């Protein structure tokens, strides 16, 4: 079970409270987690990564285990603590004015 924490705006868009818990088959990577997240909550498609290129949106960041994983390759394995559910995968809206 993977734990995902969404920023407030995306929690509201997906109509969820608190953490999201996802089952991910196979290797636990950014791509696998986001695929599972978007499959469960289609309203999030296009809001975290581009529909077509799958690139992370510029003002979105991925944190876990006190590390910034935003620039890791999407198919790189996430930390074991995320894969085991001990630590959440944090999707962050960057601090950027407005």
């Amino acid at each position, binding site marked *: 079970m993977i734990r995902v924490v969404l920023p*407030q*705006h995306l929690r509201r*868009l997906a109509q969820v409270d608190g953490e999201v818990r996802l089952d991910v088959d196979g290797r636990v990577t950014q791509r696998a987690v986001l695929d599972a997240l978007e499959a469960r909550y289609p*309203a999030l498609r*296009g809001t975290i990564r581009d*529909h*077509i290129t799958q690139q992370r*949106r510029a003002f979105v960041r991925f944190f876990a285990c006190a590390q910034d994983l935003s620039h890791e390759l999407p198919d790189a394995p996430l930390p074991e603590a995320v894969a085991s559910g001990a630590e959440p995968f944090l999707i962050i*809206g960057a601090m*950027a004015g407005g």
Partner: protein
Amino acid sequence: MSGVRVLVGTRKGAFVATSDARRQRWDISGPHFAGWEIYHVKGSPADPDRLYASQTSGWFGQVIQRSNDGGKTWAPVGNQFVYDGVPGTHQWYDGTQHPWEFKRVWHLEPSLTDPDTVYAGVEDAALFRTTDGGQTWQELPGLRGHGSGPGWQPGAGGMCLHTIVQDPSHPGRLFIAISAAGAFRTDDAGKTWRPVNRGLQSVGLPDPKAEVGHCVHRIAMHPSRPGVLFMQKHWDVMRSDDAGDSWHEVSGNLPTDFGFPIDVHAHERDTIFVVPIKSDSEHFPPDGKLRVYRSRTGGNEWEALTNGLPQRDCYVNVLREAMAVDSLDACGVYFGTTGGQVYASADAGDSWAPIVRDLPAVLSVEVQTLE
């Protein structure tokens, strides 16, 4: 009992104001989609309970929301806007060619006859359409594929397609406007397009009478006389009597002919409204006085409407999407400001009162007249 529903898009959410036909007391709901920029909210003429909203964010991109109950509840629908084929390039600020990149939806124009069909004007400029209530969107590529596309360039606000006007007497005819490319018309439901900018003059262009490149801010039409169009351009208020084939200036005695919105009275085809703004570098009313100007002669002769509007120390702007009229008798006129006020007139502009004063900056105002 008849009434009106005012749909307000702001920098930080959408608001819905409702009133009975007297238009004196208002109930406000919102913010809907709090914290997001709401570029436009518009209802279907064929089903007033069907609303569409463009919700956008620098962080999370584009969302399209749909309501089937007049704005009480909303649900996100499709948000995938993919240019048809190879995106191509347009002119960038430095003169180089720049790939078309989708940024946001500026304008949603529901079909006059089908609640599931909606046109979307987007930045970078293109026209999309859904025929399934917003679940999927397809580009009408004939516009962007018009031969002039590589010469289009963004205005300061981005290269946006912000105006879509449907001709009710000619189902295949649409007018659109792009900043800063100009106005275009299709007569075959979007397959082919041609620029309709003859008569426009823009001193910021190397050729002031160029076929494309004009910064058109807004076009308005009375549905009973679709061959007559009114335009607020970057500078100049213009009129066409031949469906855009040619334009002539009707700025007349306006204190300044810069501005953004323009609209037509619901029952008087030659009564039009604009909000003069001092200049393109000073986006506020002249002399700190917020004045709507009304012409009852289809342009050229204008009168200032001031009753109920601030006449000192007012330095707000009124953006291109932020004016609308209802079709009650007398015609109601509405506009919103970048200072967060939404003003209403229940007597065609003779007097004004704020519906609400302290919203985030208003991006768009639309009105539905409810039976």
